């Protein structure tokens, strides 16, 4: 990727690293941060040093901030997350307790509670929190890899503002990789341009822009004054109204109404831009108009494509695809085929076009001479292997392949460089000028201008909601600016139930003891005694009976069925009442069934009672500190758990995208298989990014790590274990003494 590169950056410098996509700028940044991977992944030649040392040895001296906000936040709670880097570097807990509030304040997040859920922040806040996590390591160099590419304009200003404040005193060296020059121009004093892994320009920003501006703009860099040309404005006369919304209210499936009272008319030949602040419901509205989310109230009416007018939410997937083309924010949500060519054929095929027609459509889109998508050379490539810009063009083309009268796009220009942006604009303009309607949710002012879009602004739902989207009320937020509480300085909350105070490792062990000890015998006496003792002791755990009962329902249902199995198929003895094929109901099988019923309850109920409040962070702390399992593995699992909400949202989007692509009517098994594979691909993407983010935060560094959250083992934990053992042993002894002991091995 990089070859024969010579470069030196001095303390306190502020450098902007530019170059076309694939020029090696991100690779260089990751090499400096020491997160490029090991010897089994590639070849490294030459020397690369930070402070005169190898980057992997200088971990903590360089702080790397990446593009994807979800790739760098590691832990569920904000305070823990900021402490994660210093913990990995073995910084003493008392020192971390000082650094965490400093880091929060340095990025302007002092109002954020240490317990605040890191999945419930806006993009800009996530990036600032990630920056705080980097700063807590006290780096000498900040390496920023397109830190604002996935943010809306508010988020961009937040992050750039925080960085500007940080480097103001020139104590920290700054290297930024970006294709948006205007964001960073006021801040940097040196610009380095890479091409094919070599430095081709190096100097003050004005000088480099003057000499290299044209080349850079051609390569996709957003050079001020050299913005991409806009297509000609659309036709003067609009077509008939194709899409109507009346009194529409939109909501996410598991949430409340986000926006209501929406009246919207969209005509053929026009572009409508849905705008509004974060959380105003732009994407939700778009998905509702596309018939992928049910309307919470009001109506959507689509009257186009020669089909009867109606609400798209009620249509079959294969009908939807001929009338609406939907482009998702993340193209990887909507790819379902193994080559570009097949991907383009999916829609027309689902719509029931004959094979010759499908082939004709695909050939025209991949036509070598006209090459409208600039993808003809990649027709046999897997869609997931394409670059971001290529994926974007393909996703638009798949939506257009069935020639739908309406095109709906969700943040289509996110993360695009100026060249791929211009190509995207051109594709949309062609659809518009052919009389098609376009609705897009976007923050991008340039996109709105370029397509002469009519703006439909969604208000923030309520003043409290605008902040609620980012700071939900489930967590306390301090109104006045003040230092956040550090994790170790958390005040003791209200007196918790015993079950919640037990060390999770003790709870785990105590819950498993019946499963390990009671299993030696299968008889009603031992199981019954154990169950009786457990029921007597359970109130002491302090878990409300209602909670306990609700959690036990699956077990209370399953236990009788397991017993029924044994009635039918248990070891026979005594009188046999029914015999039919393999079924043999006998005195013996019924007695064993009773034993099984009691035993299942005696094994499973303690598990529910003791492990009633699982929390990944607490469990991880206990496994790492109390059980002394390898920290890297425990923390890897805890970090992955944080992605559950992201992966859940992915799974939902995958399902919606399949409906939008016309293949949502397929059988359940086939659909599920497609979603599973899609989810695993996205897991790999997110995991790969997270690995780099975690490594940049010192994860995996040699030497012992520190733990900010203590996981104490108290007398009560020992007591719980002893009681659990005593109960099971008493039960087994009772069986032995009454002569009921029955070995599980026949």
């Amino acid at each position, binding site marked *: 990727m990089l070859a024969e*590169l*010579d*470069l*030196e*950056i001095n303390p306190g410098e502020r450098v902007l690293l530019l170059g076309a996509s694939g020029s090696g700028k991100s690779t260089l940044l990751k090499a*400096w941060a020491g997160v490029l*991977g090991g*010897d089994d*992944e*590639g070849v*490294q*030649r030459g*020397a690369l040093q*930070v402070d*005169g040392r190898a980057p992997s040895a200088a971990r903590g*001296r360089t702080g790397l901030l990446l593009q994807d906000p979800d790739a760098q936040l590691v832990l569920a709670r904000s305070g823990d997350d900021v402490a994660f880097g210093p913990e990995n570097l073995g910084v003493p807990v008392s020192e971390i307790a000082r650094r965490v509030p400093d880091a929060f304040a340095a990025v302007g997040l002092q109002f954020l509670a240490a317990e605040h859920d890191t999945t419930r922040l806006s993009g800009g806040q996530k990036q600032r929190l990630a920056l705080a996590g980097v700063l807590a390591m006290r780096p000498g*160099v900040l390496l920023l890899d397109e830190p604002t590419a996935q943010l809306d304009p508010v988020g961009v200003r937040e992050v750039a503002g925080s960085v500007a404040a940080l480097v103001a005193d020139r104590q920290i060296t700054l*290297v930024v990789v970006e294709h948006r020059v205007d964001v960073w121009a006021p801040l940097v004093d040196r610009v380095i341009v890479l091409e094919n892994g070599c430095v081709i320009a190096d100097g003050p920003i004005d000088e480099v822009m003057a000499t290299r501006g044209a080349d850079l703009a051609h390569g996709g860099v957003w050079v001020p004054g050299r913005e991409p040309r806009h297509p000609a404005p659309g036709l003067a006369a609009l077509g008939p109204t194709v899409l109507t919304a009346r009194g529409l209210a939109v909501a996410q499936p598991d949430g409340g109404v986000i926006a209501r009272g929406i009246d919207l008319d969209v005509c053929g030949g026009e572009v409508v831009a849905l705008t509004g602040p974060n959380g105003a419901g732009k994407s939700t509205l778009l998905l509702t108009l596309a018939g992928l989310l049910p309307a919470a109230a009001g109506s959507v009416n689509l009257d186009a494509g020669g089909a009867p007018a109606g609400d798209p939410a009620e249509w079959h997937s294969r009908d939807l695809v001929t009338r609406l083309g939907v482009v998702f924010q993340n193209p990887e949500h909507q790819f379902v085929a193994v080559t570009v060519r097949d991907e383009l054929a999916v829609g027309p095929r689902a719509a029931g076009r004959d094979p010759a027609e499908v082939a004709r459509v695909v050939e025209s889109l991949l036509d070598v001479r006209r090459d409208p998508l600039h993808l003809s050379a990649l027709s046999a490539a897997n869609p*997931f*292997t394409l670059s971001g810009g290529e994926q974007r063009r393909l996703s638009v083309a798949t939506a257009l392949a069935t020639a739908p009268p309406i095109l709906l796009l969700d943040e289509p220009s996110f993360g695009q460089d100026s060249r791929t942006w211009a190509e995207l604009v051109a594709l949309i303009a062609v659809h518009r000028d052919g009389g098609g309607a376009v609705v897009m949710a976007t923050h991008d002012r340039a996109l709105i201008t370029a397509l002469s879009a009519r703006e439909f602004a969604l208000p923030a739902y309520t003043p409290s909601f605008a902040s609620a989207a980012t700071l939900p009320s489930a967590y306390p937020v301090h109104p006045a600016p003040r230092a956040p509480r550090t994790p170790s300085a958390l005040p003791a909350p209200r007196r918790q139930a015993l079950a919640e105070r037990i060390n999770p490792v003790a709870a785990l062990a105590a819950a498993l003891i019946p*499963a390990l000890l009671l*299993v030696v015998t*299968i008889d009603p006496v031992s199981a019954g005694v154990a169950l009786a003792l457990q029921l007597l002791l359970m109130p002491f755990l302090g878990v409300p009976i209602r909670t306990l009962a609700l959690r036990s329902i*699956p077990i209370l249902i399953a236990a009788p069925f*397991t017993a029924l199995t*044994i009635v039918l*198929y*248990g070891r026979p003895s005594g009188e046999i009442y029914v015999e039919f*094929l*393999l079924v043999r109901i006998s005195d013996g099988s019924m007695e064993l*069934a009773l*034993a*099984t019923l009691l035993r299942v309850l005696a*094994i*499973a109920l303690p*598990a529910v009672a003791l*492990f009633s409040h*699982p929390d990944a962070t607490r469990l991880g702390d206990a496994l790492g500190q109390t059980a002394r399992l390898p920290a890297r*593995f425990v923390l*890897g*699992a805890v*970090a*992955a*758990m944080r*992605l*559950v909400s992201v992966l859940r949202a992915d799974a939902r989007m995958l399902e919606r995208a399949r409906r939008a692509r016309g293949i949502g009517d397929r059988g359940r098994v086939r659909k599920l298989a497609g979603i599973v*594979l899609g*989810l*695993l*691909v996205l*897991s*790999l*993407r997110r*995991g*790969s990014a*997270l*690995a780099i983010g975690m*490594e940049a935060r010192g*994860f995996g560094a040699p030497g012992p790590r520190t733990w900010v959250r203590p996981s104490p083992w108290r007398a009560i934990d020992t007591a719980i274990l002893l009681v659990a053992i005593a109960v099971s042993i008493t039960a087994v002894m009772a069986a032995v003494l009454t002569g009921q002991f029955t070995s*599980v091995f026949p």
Partner: protein
Amino acid sequence: MEISESDTITPRAPRPTFRWRVVDIVIASVLAVAGGLIFILWNLAYNPVTAPLAAFIPGLQALFHGIWLFPGVLVALIVRKPGAALYGELVAASASVLISGTEWGPLTLLSGLVQGLGAELVLALLLYRMWGLVPAILAGAGAGVGMVVLDLILWYPGAAIEFALIYSVSGIISGAVFAGLGSWLIVRGLARTGALSRFAAGRELGSRVAT
């Protein structure tokens, strides 16, 4: 603070090791958590329909249990490190417990542990050197063995020998098919997307099907 780059040459050759890299740990964790999420989807589809029916089937219900065994084999086939099958299955089981609240709680972890061990033992016997279709199927069957042994001891100790036999054979076949063959197919599909480029599995399979 000074960062610099100069041009002394130290060429190194790619070499696989048994040591887990950070990316191995993180990818194994994220895939396993996704597996836990898939368990929950599967449980929603499977339990309400078949749980009551299962009581009347003489052990054949185990034919569907292989779905719960795939994360261990899948993670092992991708990261190819000692302990990967055990870790993958255990984390997937933990994730399903942590996501859905409890259902069987720690008992699910115990299942994950034993099932993961089953697959792990097979891969260890192959000295962690074979990752093709046959090893995958054997590992899936190994996970199936772990599953049926635990289930028969924990839940069905009173069952007659016929039931135990049918349950065992069904569970092992199911493990071989869903967890073994299934994971192998998934890895091939994933390799084609280029998402496995940092893994030997992705580089081997990816280059074979690259365009």
